[in-house]
């Protein structure tokens, strides 16, 4: 069960894995995620389903090595099994034909963005994608994105590839050049916050996919709560995508810090 059948490094710290999960492969839709656990002492971590292959009965995940659990996952090899894997979770993206979509992906957020870009393209939209990374070697999925986008703009913080600058600079130029009907932004919370401010200025409907802290992923614990439009929502069942103009990003940024100290202690222990 949950056997890893393929593994590939997309950058130094980002791994793509293909895992046997025939039921999930069949039922998942773009925007869905899974929760997995490595080992009997592992924690449950959420990861977006980047792609699936129904004939082979596999799903692909793309994970960035940022901490204890993602590291454990990244060290697994082909043939190893993931202890627990559950999904598909969350509401799927509302994929429809609207015209032109601006997709913004930052860092490892490019991974969850990929299935959405693909779906919007398949639904007959024009898709303009802006990708951002700190530097060239941290940029992932560029070729895949080019395959499914009509246009791709790449931004890097250090200018080592594409254009130097933040994702919002690239996005604003796209918005000024052509009529954008809808936006979607996925990446670090700060990036999404600024992307939302930008598209609000131009009054373009925008969705953001949140990477809240989760435990069960089924609506049972409330760890993943966020404030959207003044109301408390649970990211795992009401999301992960919400109207970006209504999300309280400052609260979300604060909540992501909840376990920073504990995680540092855990990492220290492993060393």
């Amino acid at each position, binding site marked *: 069960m949950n056997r890893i059948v393929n593994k590939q490094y997309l950058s130094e710290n980002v791994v793509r894995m293909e895992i046997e999960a025939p039921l999930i492969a069949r039922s998942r839709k773009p925007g869905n995620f899974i929760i997995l656990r490595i080992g009997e002492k*592992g924690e449950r971590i959420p990861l977006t389903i980047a792609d699936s292959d129904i004939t082979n009965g596999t799903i692909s995940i793309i994970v960035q090595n940022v901490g204890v*659990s993602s590291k454990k996952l990244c060290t697994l090899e082909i043939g190893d099994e993931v202890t627990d894997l559950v999904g*598909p979770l969350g509401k799927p993206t509302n994929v429809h034909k609207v015209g032109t979509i601006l997709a913004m992906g930052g860092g490892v957020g490019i991974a969850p963005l990929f299935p959405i870009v693909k779906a919007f393209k398949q639904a007959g939209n024009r898709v303009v994608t802006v990708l951002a990374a700190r530097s060239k070697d941290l940029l992932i999925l560029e070729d895949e994105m080019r395959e499914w986008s009509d246009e791709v703009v790449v931004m890097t913080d250090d200018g080592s590839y594409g254009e130097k600058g933040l994702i919002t600079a690239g996005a604003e130029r796209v918005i000024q050049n052509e009529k954008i009907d809808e936006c979607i932004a996925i990446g670090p919370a700060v990036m999404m916050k600024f992307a939302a401010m930008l598209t609000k200025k131009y009054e373009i409907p925008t969705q953001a996919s949140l990477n809240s802290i989760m435990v069960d992923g089924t*609506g049972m614990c409330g760890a993943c709560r966020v404030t959207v439009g003044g109301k408390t929502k649970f990211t795992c069942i009401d999301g992960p995508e919400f109207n970006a103009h209504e999300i309280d990003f400052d*609260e979300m940024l*604060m909540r992501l810090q909840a376990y920073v100290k504990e995680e540092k202690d855990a990492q220290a222990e492993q060393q």
Partner: protein
Amino acid sequence: MTVNTDYLKEQRGQEWRVELRKKIKNKDRLTIERVKMPEMDPMERIKYQDKEVNLGLTLDAAMREASRCMDCANPTCIEGCPVSINIPKFVKNIERGEILDAASTLKETSALPAVCGRVCPQEKQCEARCFYVEKMKKDPVAIGYLERFAADYERESGSMSIPNVEDANGVKVATIGSGPAALSFAGDMVKLGYDVTVFEALHEIGGVLKYGIPEFRLPNSIVDVELDNLRKMGVKFETNFVVGRTASVEDLEEQGFKAFFVGSGAGLPRFMNIPGENYNGIMSSNEYLTRVNLMNAADDSYDTPVLKGKNVAVIGGGNTAMDSVRTAKRLGAERAMIIYRRSLEEMPARVEEVKHAMEEGIEFINLHNPVEYFANENGRVNKMKVQRMELGEPDASGRRRPVALDEYVELDVDLVVVAVGVSPNPLIPSCMPDLEVSRWGTIEVNEDKMQTSIPQLFAGGDIVRGGATVILAMGDGRKAAESMHGFLKEKYNL
């Protein structure tokens, strides 16, 4: 559940019961004092999250307690038990030293006696209706302790009986969820020869028994033994499977499942929607208890973290609140407080849990209700404002309604656990549009049959009741099994 009085009478007339009644005069039975449960010392037990507080009765103490029971001609205690356990029969078996017979009496009606003996609110159920309470104004027979004793004795004797299973009939049925409702349903159906699969969303079987109720009250090992028995009887378990997501009910029907029991519980935590409630360090009791009980967060060798607090406030007065506050104490809180808007008398928690909590140094700040939280510059809660309340007229539940006063107090807190109730898990209703649900989101069933508006779908436990007890959930599971059996027999000519 209806009590079969003829059957009770016939059993009561058995020679050994008659003899036993004659052995001690009722007058003398009445003078025996109710047994005290041996407990771990409060100061010692708060060092452990996983050591059970109640140590269990000795054989002598159990037999003596059992001899208090009058073996009443009209055993009202049975009417107080949601699954109508034949209480005098099991108690008298203990009195005569036939503990294994006592255990099998329990199993005639209850799938998890070791669990119910520990967690039933006996003081509101069987024991409330005991002759001693109703007629003598004395302490009731300790039915719960005795139930636990018999079940533990059987388990520890190593001669646990696996109930007989009828020949397989090849009909596949499934449960959605693996809490007490689903488990008791599964046990009954497998006995009838069905091919039963339990589907559970989490990575562990047991529902609230595993992720909610802490080990100091209900050790996991006890639940595991029961699960093992079900496994030996042929029940199949599928964890990490969210019905409605991983596969739909229709998908499962295509795979040959003929009928389903929904026992998906009341998983959705409620918050109070007051300012500051999303600060770090404020979480639902479900999150807190899941991190500690299911994910072992208190043990550093596990990856899941849990925030610890020096000054911990737990909001609410139910079992969940008691479990959370006592957990906080065990994780090192200096002040562990219950903030409850009514008074001690209205608390819905089991009386024993309140008593244990008090012994452990939990502070009870009753007649107070939180109105706002404050945080430090990192967004971690550091203060809360609570409003004083007084009791007014009784409300629909018969409890006196709390009325807010214009008086406020501020408390220093660094961890807050909100335990003000749960709502029904919306997942199954949301993916089955034909399923009738109430205004509160509970699944509507025909009460005698536990059948929903979709004929092959039965339901019970918290998803139907909106939050109840382990034993009520189990009673629903049994009732559903019986009526599903009738439904399938007719439909498929079994």
